[in-house]
């Protein structure tokens, strides 16, 4: 008989004898059974834990592999788009040179601390603290953004501080467009603190919730392409324009820093002249 079989025989004999002994002492049988059962149950529980951890690890790994694969795909798409954009930029440079067209020079951004925000009351504004020596009246009408998108524009500056009219203020107007269709309109603040409206978009234009709204660069203040928000609802009540509600891209409740654009706006005299021509 092999050693393994002898060991099994031994275990069986010991178990039977223990059972026989516990049967002779019923009041202690439970304790003895517990002594025998507890380590076995502990082993089973430990094995279960190990199995659970392995299964969880396998699931996590599978999920990470899927995410990794998706991110690799996204990276490939972005690399392709980036290469296409570089090619387009090169093409624009080549084509614009014979025409004598000068592209706008690169914009400089000035980082400023947000020291005051009021986005609930009647006058929705913020106050920025600019780096020392940079404040002055010339900062008026400069665009202000965050890393997420458009915040507003400077309406007053003095000392090291500048007041910003938030894009959600009722007096704020921003020339904007729906990125997907390039259709332009005017973004304004509304009675609701966290909602913008996009006006003057004809009902014939295809607008859907989820469409991105960016600045159109047609108001003389804000350059083209700054994210403003996302369309959350579109209603057509029989008028000639849609009633479009837009959720601002910038979370006004978590402001800490903002960028003031050094880009010069179109001078007011020129804007007034344009109005005069229009009249």
């Amino acid at each position, binding site marked *: 008989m092999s050693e393994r079989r002898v*060991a099994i*025989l*031994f275990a069986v*004999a010991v178990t039977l004898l*223990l059972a026989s*002994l516990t049967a002779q002492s019923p009041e202690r049988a439970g304790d003895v059974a517990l*002594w025998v059962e507890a380590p076995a149950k502990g082993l089973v529980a430990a094995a279960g834990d190990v199995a659970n951890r392995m299964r969880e690890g396998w699931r996590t790994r599978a999920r990470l592999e899927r995410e990794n694969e998706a991110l690799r795909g996204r990276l490939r798409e972005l690399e392709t788009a980036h290469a296409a954009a570089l090619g387009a930029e090169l093409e624009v440079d080549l084509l614009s040179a014979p025409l004598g067209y000068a592209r706008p020079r690169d914009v400089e951004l000035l980082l400023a601390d947000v020291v005051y925000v009021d986005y609930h009351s009647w006058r929705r504004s913020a106050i920025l603290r600019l780096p020392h020596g940079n404040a002055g009246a010339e900062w008026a009408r400069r665009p202000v953004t965050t890393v997420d998108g458009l915040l507003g524009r400077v309406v007053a500056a003095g000392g090291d501080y500048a007041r910003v009219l938030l894009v959600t203020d009722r007096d704020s107007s921003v020339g904007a467009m729906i990125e997907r269709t390039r259709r332009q309109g005017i973004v304004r603040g509304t009675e609701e603190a966290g909602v913008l409206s996009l006006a003057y978009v004809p009902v014939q234009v295809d607008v859907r919730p989820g469409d991105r709204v960016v600045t159109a660069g047609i108001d003389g203040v804000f350059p083209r392409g700054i994210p403003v928000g996302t369309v959350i609802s579109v209603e057509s009540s029989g008028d000639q324009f849609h009633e479009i509600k837009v959720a601002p891209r910038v979370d006004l409740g978590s402001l800490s820093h903002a960028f003031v654009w050094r880009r010069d706006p179109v001078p007011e005299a020129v804007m007034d002249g344009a109005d005069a021509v229009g009249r």
Partner: protein
Amino acid sequence: MPWAARFAASLALVSLVELLLAEVLPVAGRTVDLFVLLVVLSSLAGNSLQGVTGGLATGLVQDTLSASPFGLHGLACCVVGYGVARLSQRVDTSQRMVAGLLVAVGTLVHQAIVLGLLTALEVGEVSGGAVPLRVVATTAVGVPGLWLFNRARAWVDERRTLKEGRARPR
């Protein structure tokens, strides 16, 4: 003679001696555990299966003869028999020191199991004070007993060889 028959004869002899000792010299009967000795000696000379079966049979006979709960010595002797048989496959049992140590360890384990079970089950009297004395006395009897056992086995083997030599046709 096959191992089972020889073991049964030895078991009968040990049982008889134990009964006689209990009548004639009760102190010696309580101090020296001849059953454990038989289990250890037979396991030293045999394999694991013989250790388990020999230990189980010896323990159950001891349970029958004594007033202890049935299975108490059976369990203890079974463990001792199997353990000593497995150990004897890994150590040199021809050395008297090693054999004496195995006898002492076997007796100690046997006593520990018996006392532990009695305590756990609360089915008999528990007196741990006599354990060292039993271990020493059983070992003291076991080492010469092992020597005698080996001598007797050698003598039997020699006789068998001589007998086979004479019986061989010329």
